[in-house]
């Protein structure tokens, strides 16, 4: 069996990639994907930790986190859609009417 530490490490890397991607990419969909990546890192972490502690709650947490991520995607896409409807772009940089 893989040492949970490795999994944790993978999670950390995933998280950093996700975070990096979240602010380096312009496309809203890609940013959403990056956020999903971060959430996935969380899931991995939970699972790894659950394995480490031999505790079932971690699995439950992971399942819940997946549900949350799903809801988030649903809402996110809906919001992006309305943004596209108004601004006709999904580039985050071009949506800057509100500032200062």
């Amino acid at each position, binding site marked *: 069996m893989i040492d949970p530490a490795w999994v944790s490490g993978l999670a950390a890397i995933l998280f950093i990639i996700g975070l990096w991607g*979240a602010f380096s990419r312009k496309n809203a969909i890609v940013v959403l994907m990056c*956020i999903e990546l971060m959430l996935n890192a*969380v899931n991995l*972490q939970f699972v790894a930790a659950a394995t480490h502690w031999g505790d079932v709650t971690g699995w439950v*947490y992971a399942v819940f986190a997946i549900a949350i991520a799903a809801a988030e995607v649903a809402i996110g896409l809906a*919001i992006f859609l*309305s*943004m596209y409807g108004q601004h006709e772009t999904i580039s985050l940089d071009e*949506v800057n009417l509100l500032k200062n």
Partner: protein
Amino acid sequence: MTTEVFSTEFWTAFAPESILVVGLLLIFIIPNLGNSKFRIPLTKVHVPWFLGGRRFKLTGSPAIPGMLATATLFTALGMMIIETIDGNMDTTTVTSGGIVILQIDNFSRYFEILFLSAALLASMASLDRIPAHTFQGKKSLEEMYDNRRQADFYILMLTTAVGMCMVALAQDLFVLFVGLELASLATYVLVGFHKESKAGAESGVKYFIVGSVASGVGLYGLSLLYLEFGSLQLTTLAANWADASILGTIALGLVLVGFGFKVSAAPFHFAAPDAYAGANSPVAGVLATASKAMGMIGLIRVLLVIALPEANSEGSAVWLYALAILSVVTMTWGNIAALGSKNPKRMLAYSSVAHAGYMMAALTAVGAWRWGEIEAPGDYAEAIVAAVLFHLFVLVAFKLGAFLVLGLLEMEGGASRLSALAGLARRDPLIGTAMFIFMLALAGVPPLAGFMSKFLVIAGIVSASIGELWMNGTVSFSDIHWIWWLALAMFLNSAISVFYYLRIGVVMFLDVPEEGRRKPLPYGASIRMAIWVCLVATVILGLSGDTLIDMCYRAAESLNLS
């Protein structure tokens, strides 16, 4: 009292929350009641099914969801207040499989009352702000939109309320986070509710994206905590915190980010002004008060319940410096930014950033004293937490009130320029005066609630900085803990803040109303009612806050900090 999920006691204890959920379901169902019939397959028997089809006139009225939501919130709030107000409340703990999930105690009930009050006021205001047009005849596109989205809006509002209540009740960090996400997801939609306008859509996107990232970071922090301690139970975490490794500290920082976004602490606050500016005013008001309170629960749980040193140990909390810096930066940033802002909603948003800074400064003070040196550290902590709770509650009165006044102005078209307020006092003296009183309260002018809360917060900080020095004889200035300077920073910041709060007063009382705003304000009975409630609360809580302060203390005591 400990109870299992869905046992009889559970339902008794959770009656208000249950009512909320039932109300939520009713808003789903009632507008859709119609004459549809279900044909039993293969027969011609049509069983009345009532869902769908041609809607009944009475239940199909677009005004119904709003009333339903208001009634639901009102009932739930009333039940909670009756339960709490006398101070003899039982603590009910809900467990499932050995894990403590929820707990009803003074603390959680207090916050639930806060959330529901904010939601109630917002939905009352929305009755006029997003009016349901029941009259006959031709309707404009705008009005059609309004009518169609009545149910959506109140469903989201109730969902937010339920999510927030869950945060207040949660005894497990993950449960807390689930509640937080529930509320957040609903507010993302609420912020972007006006998807027909560019600003609405944009603010929704920004709030959503930044919020998601923040909660992603927070969730990752949780997972690290879980990795460190093997549990996310508050009690477990608190008990084992002293043995935590560096990982725990890092996890703490990450979790802090998640909540920091909710309380709009700098530098996680950036989306807040945009969101407030784009959202409609009652929703912005809820964000600035209830949502902030929700984040504050998280901070209190994590920083005070979990991450405080043991009562007899030397040294202050590990997050002391981080939070101190964060709080000073936050309050200064908020005030400085608000100083030049020409958009009243953004100004209020920045001011709410500043208020977050004040409360964080108070929390810092709890972590400051050396726990070992003080006889009864819990007293100090409770005083400070009570002050923060008080502040959060009165914010509902005057910050939400201010947003509601802006909402009233929005009814005649946008309120995103300072000039929209021009001459308000002349057009409607009472509303103008109310707005001015809200501003004074925000600035902290006695004898209004804002003064009282700021006073308590500062008193808390100062009391913690002095501790029990007076018992040791001569007190010299150098003996006083450096967090005293946080109080000074707070004061200087309040002094700065007077500039922009006063400017609104001047504009309202002195300037000539701009073109198109010469007529009397739209009437809006229920939004006015909400404003009056806020006004009365602002004044009453300032003049005599004893009952509320007692409630806050009981809430703080139930955290069992020492």
